[in-house]
């Protein structure tokens, strides 16, 4: 009877969990034939598995843990296997330390493994605690050539295989550059900002009137100054933000980006800043850099190839930007004398940009959802 009531009690309380279930954190770094590992294992679990609390007082001290270190090493490494291309890579303990995770103290077991040769594929078998805890999970971070892969071992999935392949620094650099190109192309607000500044580049403002520039180099240098200063500015803030030196609230950044597009396009309708649009490009470029940084964060930066990835991404952004400019400039130059360019492209285009960017600004500043760009 009382047991059934206890069960009803449980029913009411099953949402109240004080801790998370058991996890271990396994980090492997593969460097040629050498593998180095760090394995964080909860003391609570080790207590259940082999017993650590020697004096039975309910507390595990460093002395009690230290006394069992060799047993811990033997117990844990017997439940982990590494093989490179089908050949076992023997494991040996290199150090014992302690760390604290969100749910308590952990043994930090450092170990090394040596494979016969640098493997092309590696297979990892994990069975720690699965015999007595059906909900235990092993969370693996595998690092290879600056790239980190994460996955989870569970009783239903105790073996994992990785194809290491050839991931050279150059290929990694290229993959970040590709992401950079892609993100400027789908980043409509950055493109519209740039286009707003570039639209008048093939024209001259004289006595409140637009007239076409006479020579291509005039237009080219104007564009060159704008693009360069935008690039320099956003490179600065992109780097600072990606490296964690500065961080701004994203709502502020995104709102300011939208505002910059509004102002840049408005300037084409009611010119305030004439030939010095490169200054505007620089000032607002600083804000746009923070926007790029959030994309880069989403991709994740490899810790040991941080600069490489950053430069690759940035160059990709510039490459994407230059492609847009290269398509825009000859076309605009060819059309610069036409009524169409001045009325429809410059005037109509700027009005359209102001409208779209105003909607973005409202959405972002007030956290509304008006359109989905």
């Amino acid at each position, binding site marked *: *009877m*009382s*047991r059934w*009531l*206890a*069960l*009803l009690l449980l*029913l*009411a*309380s*099953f949402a*109240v*969990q*004080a*801790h*998370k*279930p*058991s*996890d271990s954190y396994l980090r492997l770094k593969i460097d040629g034939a050498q593998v180095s590992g760090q394995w*964080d294992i909860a*003391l*609570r679990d080790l*207590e259940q598995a082999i017993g650590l609390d020697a004096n*039975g007082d*309910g*507390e*595990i*001290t*460093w002395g009690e843990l230290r006394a069992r270190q060799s047993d811990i090493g033997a117990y844990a490494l017997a439940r982990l296997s590494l093989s490179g291309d089908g050949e076992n890579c023997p494991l040996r303990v290199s150090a014992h*330390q*302690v760390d*604290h*995770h*969100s*749910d*308590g*103290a952990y043994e*930090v077991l450092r170990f090394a493994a040596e494979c016969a040769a640098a493997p092309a594929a590696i297979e990892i078998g994990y069975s720690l605690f699965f*015999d*007595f*805890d*059906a*909900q*235990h999970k092993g*969370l693996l971070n595998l690092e290879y050539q600056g790239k980190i892969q994460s996955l*989870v071992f569970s009783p239903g999935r105790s073996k994992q295989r990785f194809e290491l392949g050839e991931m050279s620094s150059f290929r990694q650099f290229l993959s970040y550059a590709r992401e950079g190109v892609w993100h400027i192309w789908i980043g409509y*607000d950055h493109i519209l900002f740039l286009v707003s500044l570039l639209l008048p580049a093939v024209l001259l403002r004289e006595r409140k009137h637009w007239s076409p520039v006479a020579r291509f180099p005039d237009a080219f240098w104007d564009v060159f100054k704008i693009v360069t200063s935008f690039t320099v500015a956003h490179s600065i803030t992109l780097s600072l933000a990606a490296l964690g030196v500065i*961080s*701004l*609230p*994203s*709502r502020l950044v*995104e709102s300011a980006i939208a505002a910059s597009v509004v102002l840049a396009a408005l300037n084409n309708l009611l010119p305030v800043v004439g030939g010095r649009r490169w200054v505007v490009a620089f000032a607002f470029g600083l804000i746009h850099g*923070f*926007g790029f940084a*959030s994309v880069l*964060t*989403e991709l994740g930066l490899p810790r040991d190839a941080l600069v490489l990835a950053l430069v690759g991404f940035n160059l990709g952004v510039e490459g994407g930007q230059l492609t847009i400019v290269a398509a825009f400039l000859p076309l605009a130059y060819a059309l610069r004398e036409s009524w169409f360019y001045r009325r429809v492209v410059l005037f109509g285009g700027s009005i359209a940009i102001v409208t779209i960017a105003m909607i*973005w600004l409202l959405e972002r500043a007030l956290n*509304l959802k008006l359109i989905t760009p």
Partner: protein
Amino acid sequence: MRHLLPLGFALILGFGSGAAMAAPYTPKSDAEVLERLPFKATAAEGRELRALRRAHAEQPQDLERALALAQRYFDLASAEGDPRYVGYAEAVIRPWSSAAAPPVESLIMRALVRQYRHEFDAALADLGRAAEIDPEIAKIWTWRAAILLVQADYAGARAACARLAPLASALLNTSCNAAIDARTGKAEQAYSDLSAALARRPDAGPELKLWIQTRLAEAAVQLGRAELAERHFKAGLALGITDGYILAAYADFLLDQGRPLDAVALLKDWERSDVLLLRLALSEQAAGLPSAAAHVKMLQERFDASALRGDKLHQQDEARFHLAMLGDSKGAVRLAAENYRVQREASDARMLMEAALAARDYAAAQPALDWMKSSGYEDPVCEKLAQQLQAGAN
């Protein structure tokens, strides 16, 4: 580009929490205490558990012994709020539950484990198979009622209570039905039935009294009788049993009453429980206490750890964290909606409505509004939220 917004947010949070990560170290003294276990090996619980483990280890193929140990682990999980023991219980019965025709007791145990992991349909299926083998086991029907309540299937829960009736005492039957009444527009009746039942049984054990006091307090809250509710919460706490559920419910009540300082006093020693830590941080924030910041960070770390594992067991709390602490109403709606697909208790519905209202995503609250209507659930706070949502949508 809108997708950059949450990412920018993650950027700031990411760098914030990265800096706080601890690093491995070597303790200076052998006497340094690294971990405190839930109980001493020499204490009664420790001795009892050791005896059960030894008995099981001697004859691992003995189902009776395995079930005794598994049940003990499962009880410990609830007493200590520690899900590790559920994993232990599951592993102990695995040889039987993975068999082609599992014995009835191991089916029931697996159902408990599965409901703990919020695999409610699988748990109900296990209970169904168990009932086919032996429908005279009361436990099957209490658990079936309990799970169906969480799924807001009140007709099903009522039927389970009816199957329980000939197998259990009047008191248990009253409790089973009152739990349904309280959620289906009969809070007044649930309150009077429960208090009458409690008055008739002054000899009831403290755990049962705690359970009834908690239910009485909740019913009083639903009836808008704050003073009465407070009396029941205090009576429950005065029984001196450690129970996370009543602490959380009382803290939520105090927060709703605009008394965050009282909630802080109630929970100040409960950092170790995720559920109570969230309420502590919410109270500190509401009271404007500087200690809120550290607790918010602690919570973020715990949610991160559980995300790494791939768990989705705390989505109601995670939604509340996103809404109240991170100011991320859209994320809160997403989490609350996902949670509501699995769990449909009143607090789950309330969370969904609050998040949807904050995000002005009125359509997202529809399942909770439908539930309010079909169940007839009474609660001033939920009713007000439903009105605001309907006004907003029109």
